């Protein structure tokens, strides 16, 4: 049998890195509250505010229409923030103490990515409960599909955040990421509007935004409406995950320890 001890040691290392992220997540109260509160605010304020004035396709209540988009919003924010939070880990030298341990960079990356996916999943769970309250119901299959999409998107975007964060040494970089990555990813995704009838230039941007496919997939799963077949959305998300995951691993290998 292949060396069991080394497999266990490897699993322990990933578990240790993951455990740290999850503990920190629950202890950073302000971050937790803020990142849960923002999507709820959108869902209720934008959702109700526009319900009356906007008519979207398939004559669905606007609040329900943007619900999949709000789930994706929560993932975009939590995953990219989580990833770029590595700037703080470096600033406060925690990362140095991990990099001086006998743990390969790709293992560190994997542990971090698992942490990011867990964070996203926890936040999405809260939203799903709120969804039940506003009358959005799930079959068990839909729930499983939703979780798969959320995990894929979260992995891709955590990787993106980790990649960007690994090149940045100052906290100002964080502001840049919010303005130039987080907001565009969200607004261009069609989370708030149907993507069928967009002007050309916007349509191009929407097509390259990975979040578009997660929003579309979730609309398909939750509301039964979508612009692409679910399989295509899934495939594109998978491709993005692989590419961004590889990019992140590469950046971690190149990252300077001190």
């Amino acid at each position: 049998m292949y060396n069991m001890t080394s497999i266990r040691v490897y699993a322990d290392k990933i578990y240790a890195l993951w455990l740290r992220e999850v503990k920190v997540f629950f202890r950073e109260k302000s971050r937790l509250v803020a990142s849960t509160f923002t999507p709820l605010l959108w869902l209720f304020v934008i959702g109700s505010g526009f319900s009356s004035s906007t008519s979207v396709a398939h004559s669905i209540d606007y609040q329900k229409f943007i619900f999949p988009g709000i789930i994706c919003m929560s993932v975009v924010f939590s995953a990219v923030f989580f990833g770029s939070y590595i700037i703080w880990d470096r600033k406060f030298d925690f990362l140095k103490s991990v990099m001086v341990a006998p743990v390969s960079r790709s293992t560190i990356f994997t542990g971090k990515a698992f942490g990011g996916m867990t964070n996203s999943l926890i936040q999405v769970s809260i939203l799903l409960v709120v969804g039940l309250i506003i009358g959005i119901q799930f079959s068990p299959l839909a729930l499983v599909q939703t979780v798969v999409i959320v995990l894929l998107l979260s992995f891709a975007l955590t990787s993106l955040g980790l990649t960007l964060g690994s090149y940045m040494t100052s906290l100002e970089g964080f502001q840049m990421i919010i303005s130039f990555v987080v907001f565009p990813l969200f607004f261009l995704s069609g989370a708030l509007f149907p993507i069928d009838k967009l002007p050309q230039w916007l349509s191009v941007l929407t097509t390259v935004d990975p979040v578009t496919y997660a929003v579309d997939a979730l609309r398909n799963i939750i509301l039964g409406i979508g612009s692409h077949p679910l399989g295509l959305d899934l495939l594109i998300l998978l491709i993005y995950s692989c590419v961004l995951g590889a990019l992140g691993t590469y950046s971690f290998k190149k990252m300077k320890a001190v």
Partner: protein
Amino acid sequence: MIRINNLTKRYEKLTAVDNLSLDIEQGEVFGLLGQNGAGKTTVIHMLATLLKPTSGSATVNNFDIQKEPEKVRTSIGIVFQVPSSDDLLTGYENLQIHAMLYGVDPSIREKRIQDALELVGLTERKDDQVKKYSGGMRRRLEIARGLIHSPKVLFLDEPTLGLDPSSRETMWKYIQQLVKQEKLTIILTTHYMEEADMLCNRIGIMDKGKIIALDTPTNLKLMLGGDIVKLKLKKHDSDITVLKNLACVKKIESFDGYVILGVDDAKKNIPEILKHVDVESVESSSPTLSDVFLKLTGKNIKEQAEGGFLERYVQYDKH
């Protein structure tokens, strides 16, 4: 245990570590002494595989730092100049996570953590978040973390930086206890002369990336020509002739009505001197490593390093 061959680190124009060669034996407590910017941290970062040397090579525990970094990392524990534990986790959790990262076997993991906490006196506070620790407790936690996987070599980068005098002495006690209990090889850097004197078997004095003196603390102090004895004589002129003829007196100078002697071993030889001359007063002092440093570099390390980093910060501000 550690062999360093022509190790060099260059940043654009600045050479932080300049062609350094050095051997450190197993069980040694080796001190790297030098001012801010001398290159101490850079040496440690290279040996710990965190920083790629520009040229040269080194082995730690017989593993090459560039070819076998993971094996080097398993062999070493390190306490960074700036504490690096996670503030939001408890002391225990920090140790637990690091024990797993180092692959400490689950069957002994819990015991290693308890022992390490015990050693640095943090058992009582293990379940407090690190952000509630004092500076001294943080540093002790870092030491515990550095020892969690039973390393062969421990690097301590300014372990007492910013601690008050009594916490510093506690830290020294821990370090001395470690040397006895764990049979470690320790490399420590410091600005504090008395610290190096007290803890180290051998000291390398660094200046501008080079080691400019390398010896035991005792021998380094001998470089200055022994102890100094200051006398006020009753019969000045005649007694000076007597003193000149004594074997133990190496140097003699008159100064401001006093006579200043360079003497090999003042404690032993003062009674001998007093047998031959009548004195009104006698004073003696031993050279400190600070004096050695001053002589070697022409700079006073104390002025630079007396304060913790906060004080240094404040000084910068004033300018």
